[in-house]
Each structure stands twice: as structure tokens, then as C-alpha cells.
């Protein structure tokens, strides 16, 4: 199984808003930062107006290590969007971070064939620059395992 060729893929570019700006500012610096509730300690993602655990509005973005496990995945075979056609079949994964249970991050499994995507596999964050403003957090198999 060959690896997905992402070099020819043009990804939609995220547009930060009031809730999500600190996430993208951190990512640009190569840091994964998630919304952390100062009241109950719950980490959450995607960002939201309130803590979904305790309803507090005292939320601060804080850096996390970016190591975790594949919570789930799908392998895309259908070129619904032609911009992604060159990468098919590709693995879109959902990652649960060690430090932030309940925060689920979407990503692609980079530098590995899509067949390597398995629930429970260890992964770590890497950063993929899209343009001068936006850097995308992505995931690869954890190096400790490789």
C-alpha cells in the first residue's frame, strides 16, 4: 500500500473567528493549544462559548503535548472533492489526546499508508504550513512506536 500523495492536494483554508483565533495563532508557532476550563479543568475542542462540562465561561487556551491515540478513522475512497483526488485513498482520523480526554481533533494520518490507521494506535502532532497565516496541526504515528 502506497502512501497518500498530499503534495497535489489543495486544502480549504481555515478562517479563524473570535473563538478559534488563539488555536490558529498557537499552531502558527508550532504549538497545539486547546481551550482549558479554569473552573473545572476540562479541555475541549472544537472551541465553544462555554465549558461543555460545567458551563463556566472562564476558558483559556493552553499548550498540550499533542500525543494521543487514534479514537476513530475513515478511509476515503470517493473523490467527492476533486482537490483531494490525488490523495485517495486517504485516512482521515479523529485523535483523542492523552491530556485532553473528550477533546477530539480531526486530522490526516501523514507519512504512513492509510491501512496503518487503527483505533488505539499512538500518534503525535506535526505541523503543516498552509500559508503565511495558517499552519495546520496534523498527525503521524508516534515515533516511540516506529
Amino acid at each position, binding site marked *: 500500500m502506497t502512501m497518500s500523495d498530499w503534495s497535489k*492536494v489543495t*486544502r*480549504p*483554508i*481555515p*478562517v*479563524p*473567528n473570535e473563538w*478559534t483565533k488563539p488555536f490558529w495563532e498557537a499552531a502558527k508557532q508550532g504549538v497545539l493549544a486547546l481551550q482549558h476550563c479554569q473552573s473545572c479543568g476540562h479541555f*475541549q*475542542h*472544537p472551541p*465553544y462559548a462555554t465549558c*461543555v462540562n460545567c458551563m463556566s465561561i472562564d476558558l483559556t487556551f493552553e499548550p498540550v503535548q499533542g500525543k494521543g491515540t487514534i*479514537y*476513530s*478513522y*475513515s*478511509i*476515503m*475512497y*470517493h473523490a*467527492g*472533492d476533486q*482537490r*483531494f483526488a490525488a*490523495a485517495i*485513498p*486517504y485516512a*482521515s*482520523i*479523529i485523535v483523542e489526546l492523552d491530556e485532553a480526554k473528550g477533546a*477530539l*481533533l*480531526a*486530522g*490526516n494520518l501523514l507519512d504512513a499508508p492509510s491501512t496503518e490507521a487503527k*483505533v*488505539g494506535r499512538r500518534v503525535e502532532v506535526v505541523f503543516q504550513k*498552509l500559508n503565511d497565516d495558517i499552519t*495546520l496541526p*496534523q498527525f503521524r504515528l508516534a515515533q516511540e512506536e516506529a
Partner: protein
Amino acid sequence: MWENRCQVAVSGVGFSTITRSAEVPLAAHALQAVKAAVDDSGLDMADIDGLATYAELPASGHAIVDGISIVSVNCMMAMLKLPNLSWHVQVETVNIGGAVQQAVNALLAGVCTYAVVWRGMHNPRGTYQNLPGTYAQGAAQFTAPYGFGGPGQGMAVAYTRYLERHHQPREKMATLAVTQRQYANKNSHAYFYKTPLTREDYLNSRMVAYPFCLYDCDIPVQGAVAIVLTTAERARHLKPRPAYIAGYGQRLAFEVAGRIGSLSNYMEGGSSSSRLTWERSGFTPKDVDVAQIYDGFSASVLYGLESYGFCQEGEALDFIQDGRIELEGELPLNTFGGSLSTGRIHGLWHIIEGALQASGRAGERQVKDVQVSFVGASAPIVQGTTFIFVKEPY
């Protein structure tokens, strides 16, 4: 129990021609379905004084043009010019089941006497689900850059989680797809009426978004279906035998937009909605003679069976085996063919079949001696609307 149980009934039902793509504007399909439902009731159009729909086009990235890609209440009003129109609503949540429930409430409140509910579904040209254009706004900023498009891939990651968590092979789903197709082969309105489907077809079909193959996805079509609802008293004087509404429930599944893959939700959405329906009607899953459960993607049926209480969590893929969901089985399921085989018309067709089974009007697909007919009209992982129809008021 609900004091209003069996006070409102489904009377007539109607179908448009179901085509793969748009040959005529969607408004024409909706009008055809509404006229057929009114005719089926034996009413004149001028008798209709209530209108309700859920108009959303679930395909993303396409133009919304009223009459072509959606059929709003306003569009229907302009076509019908009802002289006695006294109530109308267009709901924004819980899909078409919400519109039916609003119509039930309006009839109970006495603000209309004969309400029509329709669902029109457009199949746009080109790719059904498009990723956003150059930029991904809102919740999509965390999903679209990774190639997560419409609901399909979000449903697919949830299904992977389900299969892995419960140690189930996806191949077991072949039974659902094949059984539903056999039912559709007895339903002349279904898109796949004349097309058989074998277990081998399912197992050999192309993968779309693993673990979903082609036959795990309902086929996008152009068409509409409609029903007439009225009070039980009035329904008894109309042509068809009424299907009495014994109870209903609704619940959006709580999840922050953009958080996908989690299964935490479907038990919450489905069980909350169905609990209200069981409590209001006084029935339990064991009392149900036939069930229709929303199947936009095949996995939704599993979430429905488990969250509504027909089987335990993680057991649904085993529950559907061994003939249990066939016509003579313990729980005949999606007896009209389901969206997988009739085409993507959302949950109103499930509601129609639930009503036809309760009133003994399902023809070749009729389950014997139906008293209690259950419907889960939308995907519990997103939203739950549930209904119970009965043959006799109690």
C-alpha cells in the same frame, strides 16, 4: 400516559415520481405528492387548512432556490392558493418529524382541521456533498481542511468507532441492505423497485468512505412524499382507515458542531426521544409489531435499534440476523425498503410506512396483525424524532 394519545391520525399518503436526477422542478414533485395524499384521503384541496414542512437541502455547496432545490411553505402556498388556510409552519430542527409533530400540536389546539406535511428532496447536478470553497468557516475550519466533507465521513468515523468498540465486522450489515431491498422490490414507489440486491453485491461493492460501502449509503434522488393529518374524529369519516398517533418524542443529540466521531451522543438522542414516546403511549419495545428506523446511512439503524431499546448497546448487528427483521420475523424493519432502497427522501417515508402498517394498508408488505407500529424518523446520532402509530385507539 399522554392524554392526547390517539386524538390525531394520519389519513391519506402520497408519493411523487422518484427520479435519479431533476427532470422537473422539485415543486412539481411536491405538488404531485400533496395532491396524491389529499386524493387518498378523499378530500378536496379546499379542505386543507394547515401546511408544514422541513425544507432543508442536505447537499452542501449548492444554490438554494425555492421550488427547485427546496419546497418551502411559501412555495406550496403559492401553488395551492388554499381558500381556508389557517395555520402553517416550517421547522428548522429535528428534520421532517418535527414538522409532523408541529402539525399534531396544531390539530390538538384546534387551529386547523386537515394538515398536509410534505418532504421534497432535490438531487443537484454534480457532486452531492462539496467541501467548502477556498476557505473553511465556522465548525468546518476543523474538519474540511482534512478532507471531511458532508455528513458521510462524520458518520463513517462514528461507525468505525462503533465496529471497533463492539468487535463487530462490517460484513454483517449485508443482511440489512439485502432485506431492505427485498422489501423495496414490493414497493412500486421505491427507486430500486425493480433492482434486486444480493449479499454478494453488497460484499463486493466499492468502498466510499470506509467502513461505508456504496450500499451503506442511501441513493440521492429527486422526489417528494406527503401525508394528511387530522383529528381522530374527522379521520374516521375519511376514506382510508386512520393510523392513530399514540405518542411521539423529539430530542436533538447534544454535540458541539465540528466535534465528530463520538458515539457519546446517539444513545442520548435516541433514548431521550424514544423514552418520551414509550411513556406517552404506554408501550415498550416488546409491544412493537413493526418498526421503521431512519437509514440515511445504514449505521443509523444500529444506533436506532439500540437507543430506542430494541436491543442492547453493541448488539444491533447480531439482532438484524437470522430473519428477525423479515416480514415474518420478530421485528419486521424498514418494510418499505428504507432510504437505502427507496431513495433519499428523509424520514417522512418512514412515517408513511409506519402509518400504512398500522392501518393495514401496506399491501404485499403488510405485517400480520399489526397493532403497534414504531417509527424513528431521523438519525439519533444527530437528532431523534420517534412515533408510535396504532390500529385501534385505547
